[in-house]
C-alpha cells in the first residue's frame, strides 16, 4: 500500500477525525450552554425566535443576498463553500476512507459533477486569496491565518483535481500524500480556527439577539466591582 493510503486508513487519520468531530462538538455544546445561560440571566426572556430562524436560514442558501454587497467576492465565496461541502462529503474516494476509519459512510455524488465543483472551488479560493492580497479593504482586515487557510484549501482542491486527471504531471503517490496531509491539517485546525463557523453559524444571529437582552443590575454590579460600595458619580 502506498504511504498516503496507509496514512489515510491508519490510526493517525482516525485521531485527526476524532479531534475534528469532538472539537466541533465541544464548541456546539459550549455555545448552546452559554446561550441558555444568557437567556436565563436576561431581564426579558422573550426573543423573536421565528424572525432569527428565518434570517439564519435565508443565509444557508443566500441567493437573495449575494449580489447586494461585494458581489464578485460573495459569489466566489459561495462557490467555494458549496464546492468544499459537496466534494468533501460526497466524493466516493472520501467516503471509502471514512468507511475504512469508522465503519460507515453514505451515498456519493457522481464524479463528473464533483469535478466541475472542484474547479469552481479552485476559482473561488484563488479569487478570495487574490482579493485579500490586492483589494485594500480586504487587505487591512486579513490576518496570517486567513491567507494560510485559503492556501490550505487551494492545496487540497488543486491536488485532488490533478490526481483525477490522466495528464497529471506529478507522481501520483506523492501528490496523494500531499493531498492527504493537507486534508488532515484542515480537519485538525477546524475547531480552533474561524472554520468553526461551519457548526457555530446557526448560533451567531441568535446569540447577537440574546446579547442585546441585558441582565438587570448588571450595570450597578460593574460599578461596585470597579469602585466599591460607594460607587461613582456620573
Amino acid at each position, binding site marked *: 500500500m502506498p504511504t498516503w493510503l496507509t496514512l489515510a486508513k491508519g490510526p493517525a487519520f482516525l485521531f485527526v477525525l476524532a479531534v475534528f468531530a469532538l472539537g466541533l462538538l465541544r464548541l456546539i455544546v459550549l455555545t448552546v450552554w452559554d446561550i441558555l445561560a444568557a437567556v436565563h440571566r436576561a431581564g426579558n426572556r422573550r426573543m423573536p425566535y421565528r424572525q432569527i430562524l428565518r434570517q439564519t436560514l435565508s443565509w444557508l442558501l443566500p441567493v437573495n443576498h449575494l449580489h447586494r454587497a461585494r458581489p464578485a467576492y460573495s459569489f466566489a465565496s459561495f462557490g467555494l463553500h458549496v464546492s468544499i461541502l459537496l466534494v468533501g462529503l460526497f466524493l466516493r474516494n472520501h467516503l471509502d476512507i471514512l468507511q475504512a476509519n469508522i465503519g460507515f459512510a453514505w451515498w456519493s455524488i457522481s464524479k463528473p459533477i464533483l469535478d466541475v465543483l472542484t474547479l469552481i472551488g479552485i476559482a473561488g479560493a484563488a479569487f478570495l486569496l487574490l482579493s485579500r492580497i490586492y483589494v485594500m479593504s480586504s487587505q487591512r*482586515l486579513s490576518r496570517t491565518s486567513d491567507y494560510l487557510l485559503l492556501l490550505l484549501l487551494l492545496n487540497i482542491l488543486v491536488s485532488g483535481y490533478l490526481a483525477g486527471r490522466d495528464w497529471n504531471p506529478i507522481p501520483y503517490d506523492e501528490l496523494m500524500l500531499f493531498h492527504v496531509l493537507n486534508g488532515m491539517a484542515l480537519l485538525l485546525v477546524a475547531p480552533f480556527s474561524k472554520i468553526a*463557523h461551519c457548526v457555530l453559524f446557526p448560533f451567531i444571529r441568535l446569540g447577537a439577539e440574546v446579547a442585546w437582552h441585558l441582565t438587570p443590575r448588571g450595570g450597578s454590579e460593574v460599578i461596585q466591582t470597579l469602585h466599591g460600595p460607594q460607587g461613582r458619580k456620573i
Partner: protein
Amino acid sequence: MADSPSSQSSPMTHHKYSYHVENAGEGNHRAEKFLSAFAAILRHSNYRFIVELFARTTARCGRCAASCQVYQASNDPRDIPCYRTQLLLDVYRQYFTSSGQFRSRILGEDALSEAKMDEMAECFYRCMACRRCSIDCPLGLDHGLMTHLGRYILSEAGIAPKGLVVSVREQLEGATANTSAIPLPALLDNLEFLKDELRETKGASVDFPVDQENAEYIFFPAVSDYLMEADTLMGNAAVLHATGTSWTIGSQYFDGINYGLFYNDWILERIIHKLVGEARRLKAKKVLVGECGHAARSARQFVPTFAGDQNLPVVSVLELTWQAVKAGKLRLKPGVITERVTYHDPCNIARSGWIVDQPREILRSFVSDFVEMNPHGRENYCCGGGSGLVSLDETHDFRMKVSGKTKAEQIRASGAQIVATPCANCKKQLRELVDYYKLPVQIVGVHDLILRAVEL
C-alpha cells in the same frame, strides 16, 4: 483623530479625541482601566459569550465594508465595521482567553498600547451603531452591538463624550431631571403656550394633561421637543385629543431620552427605572413614546428588561396614530399637503422592522405626492448623526462630510420638498445637512404634517 506626541504629555488631554471628554487630567493608565472595566463587564453581563462567539467565528470577509456609509464616504480602513470589531475581539482574545494569554507570552505580543487605546476611543465614535452592516454579514455578526459594548467599556474607563455625560447627569442627578434642564414651571408654561396655539390655529381646546392618575398612557417625548418641536408635540396632542385617548405627562419625570443606549448600560438601566417609576407613581397603564427613534427603542426593548415584569407595555406614538388612521378615527384632509414628501427611517425603530410601514401608511393616507428614498425601511441609511453623535457639536464636520454624506445625496435624489422623520436626533442632523449641502427641503416630524391636515 491621531494625536501628536506633544499632546500626549500635555494636560489638555480632553482634546485628545474628536469629541470632548471630562476629567482631562485622568488620561493616564487608560489601558489598565480599560482592562479592569472589560473584566468587570464580562463578569456581570451577558456579553462574554457573544464576544467569544464572534471571536471564534469572524471570517473577516469584508462584505460589511460595502454596506457602511461611513466607510463608503471616508474610505478609511479603520471605518470597516469588521476592522473595528476586531479591535475589541483582539483585546478579548489576548487578555481573556487562555490560548490568547499563552500566545501573547510566546510571541511577546504588544500589550494594550496607547495607540490601540486611541484607535478604539476614536473608532467606536465613528460608528453610529445603525446596524446596517449586520444585514449584509453572512455570519450575522452585529457590529452595532460591538460598538455599544466598546463604548460601554471605554466609558467605565473614563472615556465618554462630555456632551452625553453632562446631559445624563442632569437627568439622573440634577434638579430638573431632564437632559435639556427644563425646570417644571417652564414646562407648564410651555404646555399653556401649546394649548393657546392649538386653540388659535385649530380652533379646538386640546388639553395637555399633567399628573392625571390612572391614564391609559404616560407620555415621554424627547424632552428637547418641548423647546424645539412645538408642531410635533401639537400634532401628538391633536391625535390624542381626536381619538379621545386618556393620557398624561408626569411632572416629576417627563424625558424620553436615554443616552445610556449610546454608551453605558448602567445609565441605560437607571433611566429606565426613572421612567418606570413615574409611570407607576401615576398608575399609568402604558408608556407612550413620542417621535424619537432611540427613545422608542430603548423604552420598548429595555422596560421589559429592567422593570421586573411585563405589565407596562411600551407604544410608539406612530403605532397609536396608525391605529387611529386605520380605524377611521382621524380626519386628515387630503390636499392640504401639496409638496412632495419623503420619509426618513430612524435606524433605531426601522432596522428591527418594528416601525417601517405604519408611518408610510399614515402619510400616504393624506399626502398626495409621496416618494421613497432608495434604499429605505429596514435597509435605510442612517441620518449620519445616530448613536448620540448629533448631540456632540464638535463632531459637526465629521457628520457633514463623512457620516451624513450618503443621506444628503439620497435626499437630493428623491426630489422631495419635505422630509418627514419621527426622531428628534434625525431632524437635527438632517437640518444641519440641509444647511451644509444647501438642499431645497424642509425637515419636519410626521406629526407636524398631521397637525397641518388634521380636522378637530
